[in-house]
């Protein structure tokens, strides 16, 4: 056991290397993305902000399946308010600033939604109103 210290050092180095992702942002000074509010000054989203932050993809998938597969046109929110199911006119009707809203997070995380392959890109003036 002559190399006890060396082995220990290597183990610690490897463990530290594996743990890098846990404190990388603190060292490298990564910042949480700041999302721009809707340019139109709209305050109320379809569902509460907390829910939207975590589950917007669930809502989008629910809307997509309801509209395309079931032919449902309206979504009734948890507060009882009705919304037309449409990504390009309802969602982007308020969040017309895709570059300062969707992209702020999605440029930083490895989740690349492919909505814009087909749906109107607001930065190119392709928002339905």
């Amino acid at each position, binding site marked *: 056991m002559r190399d006890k210290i060396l082995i220990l050092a290597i183990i610690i180095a490897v463990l530290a290397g594996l743990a890098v992702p846990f404190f990388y942002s603190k060292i490298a000074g990564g910042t949480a993305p700041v999302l721009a509010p809707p340019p139109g000054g709209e305050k109320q989203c379809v569902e509460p902000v907390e829910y939207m932050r975590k589950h917007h993809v669930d809502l989008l998938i629910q809307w997509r399946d309801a509209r*395309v*597969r079931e032919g449902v*046109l309206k979504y009734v929110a948890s507060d009882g308010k009705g919304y037309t199911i449409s990504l*390009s006119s309802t969602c982007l009707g308020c969040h017309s600033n895709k570059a300062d809203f969707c992209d702020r997070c999605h440029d930083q995380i490895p989740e690349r939604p*492919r909505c814009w*392959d*087909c749906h*109107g890109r607001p930065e*190119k003036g392709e928002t339905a109103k």
Partner: protein
Amino acid sequence: MTRREFLRLMALSGFTLAAPADILKAEGVSKKAPKRWAMAVSVFACAKRDGCTSCINVCHRIHNVPDIPDPRREVKWIWTSPFEALFPEYPPYIQGLRGRQVLTMCNHCEDPPCVAVCPTKATFKRDGIVMMDYHRCIGCRYCMAACPYGARSFNWQDPRPFIKAVDPRYPTRAKGVVEKCNFCEERLVSGLPPACVEACGGDCLAFGDLSDEKSAVRRLLASRPALQRKAELGTKPKVFYLL
């Protein structure tokens, strides 16, 4: 138990079995009949307006159908073909139709083979329309092989560079998905007729619900002889060609 009694009992039990089914059927009738959208193309009226493409133009414009010149890669929802190409089983004894351009599109079959073969249910039937869920399409093109009418097109490349002006009210498609006519489902839900029918200036197209006796299509089909493309295949096409 005599043979006669046994038969009586059998008949009675048969009746009790059948009765609930009848009751269910009666309930079904009282509910609204399912939609069976259909199109009627007046062949002679359409052929007379040789060179007119207003229905094709409006459809392709509002649905962001790309205009790709290469015929091997072209994408089309509604187009014209010579009569004998659409109806090869009808010899040219139908006077004056040989070589005439006739409008064609997805037939929105009642028994659609494309829906049967789709492995992801990307193409499915709802409210009498054979629809596509482009989100689910994996581009396997089974549906194109299954469709006897060639009504489906595949996006071999990103279609956007080939769209002159993107209409933001309807999505485009992406590379690797199949697309086709949707009977203007997005217009039907707001009570509007399909765009091609609205755009036609020559009374060549009629649209309506086959379940509705008063619909324009039902009246036309009752009054004039009509053809269906490849009716012998049993797909029950819902685009009719009035003679």
